[in-house]
């Protein structure tokens, strides 16, 4: 015990750890009515770390060469001890990351946390959302299966609908006329280096913004649910009389991470191939498009939208408009009311939007 005290004291004299812990952990107060939805950010951080660890482990045996990629993935699955576990953790984890990210965004939407003064936080989060979609798309190609090959063909092809530069852009993305070994090279570099670093940087920005502005008060269980922020000077949102981050809210974070792990392992051990259709186990063949090729579930609404519009450009433009609207939401929705039940227009639009998204996904899945 005295050794521990000595080390603690030694560090405190040099780094001021006691005041740092007081400021950032035990004395860092959160709103009294904070709820479990606020812990999804920590869950996402945990998933992202897990993806990095399993991704680095996969790099040990994966070969980013069009002739060898599929065989190397097969080796990881069949010959490397616990290779199946590491790979399925990475595959299932990527799908779960998108799912939890959607829930995180929905909670922010419904509790009005995106509103002023947190526009920058919403924007950085929106960029993170797009980066996660991009890392999923680039990672999808790497096993070089029929599924990854044709999903990438379709996904990169949709860029071709952009007027004038479209066809050149497709070729630029693919590194050639068709998806081929050059595509694998650039997608590999994006997937393992460029996008992860960018995501880590934006996670940092996202957290610094959260720390700087302060946690937003959830609208539930309060008489006054309007934000009283005036917009004339910077003000850190304090929560006097709130609950400390450590140990109280950290316990909630840990609980949510454990619940997530239960769900994650349930998929991993009882239905590991939930997200892998049959075509994921056939090596890529550039001369044979399999029947019913479909993207991952989170791209299904986009896929269906592209099919619905008579011109591909129109389909792409509608999606671009929807995404731009979502990105600029805090600048469009300028009301100070945060309670969802007191925002009927917002509720109607968001629930309509969610139903449309789910409907398009189901339609895309069965079409």
């Amino acid at each position: 015990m005295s050794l521990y005290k000595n080390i603690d004291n030694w560090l405190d004299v040099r780094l001021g750890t006691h005041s740092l812990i007081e400021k950032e952990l035990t004395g860092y107060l959160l709103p009294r009515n904070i709820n479990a939805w606020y812990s999804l950010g920590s869950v996402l951080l945990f998933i992202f770390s897990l993806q990095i660890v399993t991704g680095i482990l996969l790099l040990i045996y994966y070969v980013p060469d069009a002739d060898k990629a599929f065989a190397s993935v097969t080796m990881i699955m069949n010959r490397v001890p616990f290779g199946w576990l590491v790979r399925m953790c990475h595959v299932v984890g990527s799908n779960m990351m998108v799912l939890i990210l959607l829930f995180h965004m929905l909670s922010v939407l419904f509790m009005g946390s995106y509103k002023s003064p947190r526009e920058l936080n919403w924007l950085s989060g929106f960029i993170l959302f797009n980066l996660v979609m991009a890392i999923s798309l680039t990672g999808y190609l790497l096993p070089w299966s029929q599924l990854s090959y044709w999903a990438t063909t379709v996904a990169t092809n949709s860029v071709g609908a952009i007027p004038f530069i479209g066809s050149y852009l497709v070729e630029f993305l693919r590194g050639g006329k068709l998806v081929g070994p050059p595509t694998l090279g650039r997608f590999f570099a994006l997937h393992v280096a460029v996008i992860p670093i960018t995501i880590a940087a934006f996670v940092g920005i996202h957290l610094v913004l959260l720390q700087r502005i302060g946690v937003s008060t959830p609208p539930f269980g309060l008489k006054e649910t309007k934000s009283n922020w005036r917009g004339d000077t910077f003000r850190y949102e304090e929560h006097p009389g709130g609950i400390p981050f450590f140990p109280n809210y950290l316990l909630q974070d840990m609980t949510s991470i454990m619940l997530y792990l239960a769900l994650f392992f349930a998929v991993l051990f009882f239905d590991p191939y939930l997200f892998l259709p049959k075509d994921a186990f056939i090596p890529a063949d550039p001369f044979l498009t399999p029947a019913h090729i479909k993207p991952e579930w989170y791209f299904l609404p986009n896929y269906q939208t592209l099919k619905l519009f008579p011109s591909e450009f129109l389909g792409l433009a509608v999606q671009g408009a929807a995404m731009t609207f979502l990105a600029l939401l805090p600048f469009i929705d300028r009301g100070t009311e945060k309670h969802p039940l007191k925002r009927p227009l917002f509720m109607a639009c968001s629930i309509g939007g969610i139903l449309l998204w789910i409907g398009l996904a189901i339609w895309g899945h069965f079409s």
Partner: protein
Amino acid sequence: MENRDRRKFLGVCLGGIASASIAAVAYPLFRYLSPIPEQENSGKVTFQESDIPEGEAKFFQYAGSAAVLIKNKEQGVIALSAVCTHLGCIVQWQKERGEFLCPCHAGRYTAQGLVISGPPPKPLQPLHVSIANGTITIG
């Protein structure tokens, strides 16, 4: 007092679960990172006697390591481990001298693998060779 026992019991349970979780992660991780055993083909390597010229050395893989085969008029066929006993470099065959030279620290060995000069502490490890019907079998 009863409260402290309860606290201690819960602490032990938590510690136990945490240790079990760490073990459940550490063991697969260790196995994943361990070298994969080679798919060995009975551990024997064969050559046709006619394929190896007189006085030349043939380098090949044997049991996951490097080995060398030489054919001489005087000694017949000899197989040796090609790993220098000093620091593990692969020795070179010097045909005109009839010697092995390790390029790392200039260790010299005879064609039989015995140390002539330089830092190697031991001779090159000999490998078992048998010849039948013009086929050389090592191992």
